[in-house]
């Protein structure tokens, strides 16, 4: 004797609907978790600079091309979104490289609070890597941003 099925069998339509919803939702969750717990690249100079402090992954943006043809000059833009409270003005932004022989690439300093923090420059990259920027505020708050770059022709290796 066959027992009647206690559950309604899942129809093909229900299954596809569920799969579709999961496919849409899962990258969104991945994005949220990546923003909240961004992993700090292991750069000794950066670790000693942070000295145990953990910056927040907000407000600061480090824009680099995802693919740089030539590591000798890679365009870079740093943006720190305001507004800046009088007690928490930007003091400096430190730039660290994961692969370069000199990991401390540059420090941008603000003796007075600028109208907006947007800095463009061109950097050298000795290979594909993460570049990290850390902004230091006058109240000691730290904001960080990371960018990953693939470099096809590395600086330094070019012997010309």
């Amino acid at each position, binding site marked *: 004797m066959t027992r009647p099925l206690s559950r309604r069998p899942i129809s093909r339509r229900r299954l596809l609907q569920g799969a579709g919803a999961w496919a849409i939702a899962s990258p969104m969750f991945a994005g949220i978790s990546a923003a909240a717990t961004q992993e700090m690249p292991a750069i000794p100079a950066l670790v000693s600079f942070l000295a145990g402090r953990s910056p927040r992954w907000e407000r600061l943006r480090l824009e680099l091309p995802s693919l740089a043809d030539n590591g000798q000059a890679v365009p870079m833009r740093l943006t720190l979104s305001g507004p800046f409270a009088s007690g928490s003005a930007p003091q400096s932004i430190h730039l660290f490289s994961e692969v370069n022989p*000199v990991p401390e690439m540059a420090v941008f300093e603000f003796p007075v609070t600028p109208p907006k923090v947007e800095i463009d420059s061109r950097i050298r990259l000795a290979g594909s890597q993460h570049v990290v920027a850390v902004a230091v505020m006058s109240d000691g708050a730290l904001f960080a941003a990371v960018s990953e770059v693939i470099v096809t022709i590395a600086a330094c290796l070019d012997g010309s």
Partner: protein
Amino acid sequence: MADSRINLAAATRQGEAIEVRISIRHAMETGYRTDDGGKPVARNVIRNFACRYNGVPVFAVRMSSGIAANPYLRFFVTARESGTLDFEWVDDAGARGMAQAAVKVV
């Protein structure tokens, strides 16, 4: 030493942001390169760059070989009053560079 090119708006309203663009001619020798004879070329990069607005420091950069040759910088300064922006930089060899630009605030 090196010369530079500076780009500023012709005039800026008081309290608004002045967009400053400067490009300095400098090889920014990394110290990892060899010359045609195979001898290493000594490191010589601009170490410090500073910008003063009517004598008051408003922006500075500590550089390394991580900044590309012929350093280019774009940054913002609050327009207070008409005057000058003074730029000064010094490299590993101790050579100093200077440049000046007039700021017109309306």
